[in-house]
């Protein structure tokens, strides 16, 4: 069933959007939130677990100190107050990915609260997003739905559960209602999540890889007619897990809400599911009395008391704030204002930083990310970081070009090979037989042939009409099937003709 939608412009003419976000950040601690099992992505199912993660009878949780410190750091970076004392609670609900059938989570006593984050939009406008709270909780296991047509939950025959992710430490960052973004709401949504991602990455507390679910976003959207104060009924779109998807999902929900409101039917408060393929949401289930989570203080854990000394000690370890950091990076990298803003807007600041850290120059990193990868990501309709290009790949590509082993044209071909999973750049160069012809012998033969074929042009060059050289170079490149280094060909032609360029 497809929902009716208005165009975004129509929606904006009549309504103001109010947004809200719940961003889940997986911390990159070595061990889990409440057990000593490893916090590692991608291992064999049910091997990063012990009795605690499986919710075996008799087990008890013990809190990971580093996870608490990371949470406090996130709170500080989001300009939050840090609770002097806070507790965990149990959120009771039955679901097979939740081993105890309750989630250990902070409820009415978050470790951090009342903060804000200044988010820069593409034109440099700064929008302040108020943070309600950041609280600690544990992740659930991973369900795979088998059988049925879609691989989705609907129509599945059975499901398989891997508890490796169960108990991975999470910090959930909840915004206050975000008003006044108007038609920039979708852009703000993306910029906000990008900013959170940048902060946690910068703090070193999360790997922040959205494609692995390190940063996951639930987006709340409601509309109200212009001029009305009271909020409309909101929908909560779950698991919008790329920056592009956040933007698209918020846009779609605005359009959908507008159509519902226009039709005079009240909006239902419900969960929505985001579908990347169709860029639409579908109805999950409405809020019901089954949402009675029966929270109560977790009796197996004791309060966390954050002394001033401890908080100040952690504050002292914080890296510079994002705005200052961006200024520094721009200066370090020598990018122009426009270049730098493009990088930020394309969502590849983190990737470029990693690439430079891996050994590439700032200009090479920008050339590859902005010139090649962003375009490919756009075509593939994913975030650039999700294409799977590793910093080391770019460093290797740049080295191959620099060493004259391949030229730029070949390098882009090699990049495609890497993205197609054919191997490392060097392996692809070997496999595909790509190499700049570096032995001048065959080149000289080709040059002789090209000059002999076009004697009039050779004369023009001899007479100083250097721009004519292109025709000879083209002939040589054709003869060598593009494998020659055009620069070297040019040098050799001039040498041959005795012309000083």
């Amino acid at each position: 069933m497809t929902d009716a939608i208005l165009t975004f412009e129509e929606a904006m003419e009549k309504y103001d959007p109010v947004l809200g976000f719940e961003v889940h950040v997986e911390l990159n601690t070595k061990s889990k939130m409440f057990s000593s099992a490893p916090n590692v992505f991608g291992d064999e199912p049910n091997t990063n677990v012990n009795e605690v993660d499986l919710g075996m009878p008799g087990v008890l949780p013990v809190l990971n100190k580093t996870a608490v410190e990371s949470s406090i750091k996130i709170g500080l970076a989001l300009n939050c107050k840090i609770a002097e004392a806070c507790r965990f609670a149990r959120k009771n609900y039955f679901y097979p990915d939740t081993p105890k059938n309750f989630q250990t989570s902070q409820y009415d006593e978050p470790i951090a609260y009342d903060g804000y984050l200044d988010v820069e939009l593409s034109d440099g406008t700064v929008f302040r997003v108020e943070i309600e709270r950041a609280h600690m909780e544990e992740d659930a296991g991973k369900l795979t739905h088998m059988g049925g047509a879609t691989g989705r939950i609907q129509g599945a025959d059975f499901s398989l559960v891997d508890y490796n992710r169960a108990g991975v430490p999470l910090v959930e960052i909840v915004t206050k209602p975000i008003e006044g973004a108007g038609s920039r709401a979708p852009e703000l949504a993306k910029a906000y999540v990008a900013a959170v991602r940048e902060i946690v990455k910068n703090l070193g507390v999360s790997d922040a890889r959205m494609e692995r679910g390190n940063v996951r976003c639930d987006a709340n959207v409601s509309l109200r007619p212009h001029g009305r104060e009271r909020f409309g009924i909101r929908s909560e779109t779950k698991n919008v897990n790329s920056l592009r998807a956040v933007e698209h999902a918020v846009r779609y929900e605005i359009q959908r809400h507008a159509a519902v409101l226009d039709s005079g039917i009240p909006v239902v408060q419900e969960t929505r599911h985001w579908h990347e393929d169709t860029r639409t949401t579908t109805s999950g289930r409405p809020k019901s009395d089954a949402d009675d989570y029966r929270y109560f203080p977790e009796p197996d854990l004791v309060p966390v008391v954050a002394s001033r000394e401890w908080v100040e000690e952690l504050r002292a370890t914080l890296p510079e704030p994002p705005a200052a950091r961006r200024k520094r990076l721009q200066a370090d990298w020598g990018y122009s204002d426009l270049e730098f803003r493009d990088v930020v807007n394309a969502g590849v600041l983190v990737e470029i930083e990693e690439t430079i850290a891996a050994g590439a120059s700032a200009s090479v990193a920008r050339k590859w990310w902005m010139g090649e990868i962003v375009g490919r990501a756009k075509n593939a309709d994913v975030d650039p970081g999700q294409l799977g290009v590793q910093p080391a790949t770019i460093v290797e590509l740049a080295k191959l070009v620099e060493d004259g082993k391949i030229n730029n044209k070949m390098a882009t071909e090699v990049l495609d090979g890497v993205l197609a999973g054919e191997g490392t750049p060097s392996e692809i160069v070997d496999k595909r037989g790509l190499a700049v012809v570096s032995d001048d012998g065959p080149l000289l033969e080709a040059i002789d042939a090209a000059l002999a074929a076009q004697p009039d042009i050779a004369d023009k060059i001899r007479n100083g009409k250097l721009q004519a050289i292109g025709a000879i170079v083209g002939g040589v490149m054709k003869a060598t099937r593009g494998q020659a280094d055009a620069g070297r060909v040019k040098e050799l032609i001039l040498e041959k003709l005795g012309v000083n360029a």
Partner: protein
Amino acid sequence: MTETNSNQLIRLSAAQLARKLAAREITSVEVVQAHLDRIAEVDGGDRGVHAFLHVNAEEALAVAAEVDAIRAAGGAAAEELHELAGVPIAVKDLIVTIGQPTTAGSKILEGWHSPYDATVVKRLRDAKMPILGKTNLDEFAMGSSTEHSAYGPTRNPWDLDRIPGGSGGGSAAAVAAFEAPLALGTDTGGSIRQPGAVTGTVGVKPTYGSVSRYGAIAMASSLDQIGPVTRTVLDSALLHQVIGGHDPFDSTSLPDPLEDLVAAARIGNVEGMRIGIIKELHGEGYQAGVENRFNDSLELLKEAGAEIVEVSCPNFQYALGAYYLIMPSEASSNLAKFDGVRYGLRVLPEDGPMTIERVMGATRAAGFGDEVKRRIILGTYALSAGYYDAYYGSAQKVRTLVQRDFDAAFTVADVLISPTAPTTAFKLGEKLDDPLAMYLNDVATIPANLAGVPGLSLPGGLADEDGLPVGIQLLAPAREDARLYRVGAVLESLLEAKWGGPLLDRAPSLTAHSLTAPDLTVSTAGAVPAHGGSH
């Protein structure tokens, strides 16, 4: 070994066994075998004690043989053996053990083997104490009679038609019937002390957090404590010393070093101590014979030089109500994990759609008994939206009031004293249909759990009207468990002097005569009818 020898061995206390083992007068294999023989003799059959759900003969004998070999070899390894090495013990089947099934007395865990050991079990293994097996209990420790076990009730060795108390009736009956010299219990609202009272044994609920709960299947996390079940006060101190002390796997485990409890039990002295009678915990509602024996104990303590004072704890009147809100609330959440997904029973719905929700619903419907369901539903209610403040929230405030009552009482008394239970053992089936009457058994034991303070129950004699054991409860401030042993040891020796020997000497002797002896060398967990017994 002659039969007399075997009969003598099983009647020795753990301290006596330890001394004889160290002196190499007896071997651990003899001791373990004597207890296994006793279990075979009295535990099975239609009218057996049925204290055990599983007997761990092979492993227990292997550990015993290892201890004997170390002692025989002598040298440093023998010197380093724990005092209780080779002394066997039974473990309540709520505590997980590698290599033996753990059922919690429930169908939902039938056949489940834990892949890890509880911390207390690790400590028993470190001390090289042979584990005789796992003892019966009310399902998930929910009950005061052990009749709520899915594997049939345990019988009281004093009268096989009566309950052995609960939830730890199996551990208490095993010790009272000389099937084990020592046992572990768990006490959430009196499950160690009340069975101790009605079986004429000693039971201790340590200060909350002083014994690790890791590996004890949780009923109510903020109330549960593991503790010793024994025949003498000194034995409880010896066992407490083995299992107690900080555990990094339990966040509520106290960091304090354990006091020397054994020394306290050996010294035993009440001279000049102020012992407080809790006005609200005796008199009306307490059986006359219980009251009489309680008064006997007060007289003896007075004669020994203690000052008897009266204290009032007015908020104890709310303790039972608060307990029956907090306990089921926490239990409803703790028992959510039993859902047929990761371990244990899975039951498929008989008709209708086969979804995981329905499988969970059918599994829990079939796997849990009535009392467990009752408490889960009650707890779900007390925590549900709109009721939290009135129920769970209010109950937690009552907890504060109960603690304040204790604090006030301990400013005028060093130790408090009361009967452990309002009555002696009632008949099997007598209160099964009346949950409220059953809950009233815990009225004197519950305040200690709410406040986290330690409590000890010891035999105070036999009630005049029915000749059944009466328990005397001692309570001390949190972290002052040693006081219980000091006072308990004195009272025990005064009472035994009066009786001319241990109270259990007066228990009817159980023989195989009226009991059919089954093969108990394998698990009895599945072999016993679900509603066994003849109540």
